[in-house]
């Protein structure tokens, strides 16, 4: 199983991170650094359609980024979550906290 790959792209009013592979305690550091840095500056879209595993390490980053984004007046979007990401988010009981989108046109 692969590790993690993160591709960063810029949109008109957002940054997009295309994440592939697995986000766990072994791999999450780069993910955490990029997410925490970007959410303070701009709206952030995380394309998680190609994530093959998302552990609490990765979910904790998402939850902390929600808080940071709210403080900075920025918004975090989870785009096209893979099945395992969807299940992982549901298993926390905090699904309602996340804005899930399926297209970049949904970014406000």
């Amino acid at each position, binding site marked *: *199983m692969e590790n993690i790959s993160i591709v960063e792209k810029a949109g008109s009013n957002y940054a997009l991170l295309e994440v592939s592979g*697995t986000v*766990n*305690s072994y791999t999450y550091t780069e993910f*955490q650094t990029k997410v925490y840095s970007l959410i303070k500056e701009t709206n952030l879209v995380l394309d998680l359609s190609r994530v093959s595993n998302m*552990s*609490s390490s990765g979910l904790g980053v998402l939850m*902390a980024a929600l808080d940071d984004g709210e403080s900075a007046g920025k918004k975090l979007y989870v785009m096209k979550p893979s*099945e395992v990401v969807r*299940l992982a988010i549901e298993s926390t009981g905090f699904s309602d906290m996340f804005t899930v989108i399926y297209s970049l046109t949904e970014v406000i």
Partner: protein
Amino acid sequence: MSRKQCRIRLKSDFSSLPDLESFVTSCGFLEKEESLRALIVSTELFQNIVSYSRFPVSTAVDFAISRNDAIRLAISWATLNFGELVRASGSTSPRFDRAAGRYRGLGLLMCRNLSKSIQYKKGLFKSSVIIML
């Protein structure tokens, strides 16, 4: 793998996580949804063991997944502080650790919510967590 039981022994180290993920996803008798649940729960408990367990000598962690009426995931390892895991499993809500920049207790909450039951067994040499998915 097509048999009804899969086993693997891993070294307690985050670098073993890719092997654990490959092991779970290659258990041929698991349905898709079962495989995803097993993947998440296995990952969370292994991360917890690597992060917090104190090992007497061996750092081996044994995983076994089997199917009878339900999916059974058994994790066994030698540990000196099994009681800490048992106590932590009873905590009800995750909390943000600002120093570490991450949430604590989230993984065990996920395990509870994805499982039908979780049983903690302290043994003389090895302790086990038995999860019914």
